[in-house]
């Protein structure tokens, strides 16, 4: 293909922002709050951080735990149920809604990536896809969770795994890409019983 054909791609600005003005202003203010009031708050002050996130439009249960070094891209797209935990250095790239269920733990350095690009067209537009994580899930340290995925209730993901496909409930997964290793020791059908609400 000649260079002429390639120059037909508009080049006035490198990449015009796909986000609305209110989104960009909201994020700028949130980034300042996140770098100061949120980041510098003492570790046990989970209610204070839940309150800050609620002020910026997040749907967060007051008993959810978000640690001070966690990074939230846009609080409005974040939903955390009771006792859901985002550990230090979790990067929550919530371009699309990210929903995390009750008593779920997202361990440190995990990257929740809720957007991809449409790479079949030259404009390379951003494609936000929501992530839904069920209740009683544990995602161990430094995992990657790709866009548009649903992780079933009670699933466990081993450290440093990369999740690119939906995970079934009550399974133990690990690897890159993740493979199902076994069933979790408790949950529906297990001899060890079923937790309340499962």
């Amino acid at each position, binding site marked *: *293909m000649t260079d002429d*054909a*390639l120059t*037909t*791609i508009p*080049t006035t600005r*490198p*990449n015009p922002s796909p986000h609305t003005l209110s989104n960009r202003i909201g994020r700028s203010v949130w980034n300042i709050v996140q770098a100061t009031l949120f980041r510098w708050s003492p570790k046990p002050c989970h209610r204070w951080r839940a309150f800050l996130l609620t002020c910026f439009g997040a749907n967060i249960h007051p008993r959810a735990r978000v640690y001070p070094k966690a990074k939230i891209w846009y609080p409005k797209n974040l939903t955390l149920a009771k006792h859901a935990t985002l550990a230090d250095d979790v990067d929550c*790239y919530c371009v699309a809604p990210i929903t995390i269920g009750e008593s779920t733990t997202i361990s440190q350095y995990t*990257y929740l*990536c809720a957007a*991809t*690009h449409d*790479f*079949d*067209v*030259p404009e*390379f537009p951003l494609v936000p896809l929501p992530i839904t994580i069920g209740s009683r899930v544990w995602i161990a340290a430094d995992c*990657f969770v*790709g866009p548009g995925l649903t992780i079933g209730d009670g699933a466990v993901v081993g450290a440093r795994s*990369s999740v*690119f496909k939906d995970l079934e409930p009550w399974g133990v997964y690990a690897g*890159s890409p993740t493979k199902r290793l076994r069933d979790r020791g408790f949950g529906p059908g297990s001899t060890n019983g079923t937790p309340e609400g499962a």
Partner: protein
Amino acid sequence: MTILLSSMTPRDPGSPGPRALLWGLTQRLVMPLVPSPMYKLRRAILNTFGASLDPQARVRGGVRISHPWNLTIGRKSSIGEGAHVYNPAPLTIGARSVVSQFCEIRCVAHDEHDRTKPQHPAPITIGDDVWIAAECVVEGDTPIPNGLLVGARSHIAPESELDRWTIATGHPARSRRERDYNGPKS
């Protein structure tokens, strides 16, 4: 300023030299103060240190570059937030390519037959219309062909088999299927 900096070459290859020391200070003290959307300023600083960035290239905040004088970025290409570039050998990125957030690009290679030998600088050339998705690792001596798409968290190693306009994933990354691209292919 540019002439002054480019004249500062280290006397022996082992020592970092004044230019590298000055860049180290700039990277640690000045770059964190540049807000993420101020691409022009960041580009100007990098170009002062000998990088050749196209006026439409974008380097986001939080990117760490070890040797900016070995960096070339083409038109409309970008490096995402928090990426690490270790480039003692030249890193060349073509046009319209994207290196996503938290990627690790290492322009060094080991001796294939003797892993006890120290790693040596090895250039990386990234073609046009490439997308290296989030958290990938790219090692030296591996040319990245035009139109390649690398899935998130993949590892591009010397043993990777990469073809033009394909989608590659895995450790090491291998081309898995053709890209279904609607635009003009370079």
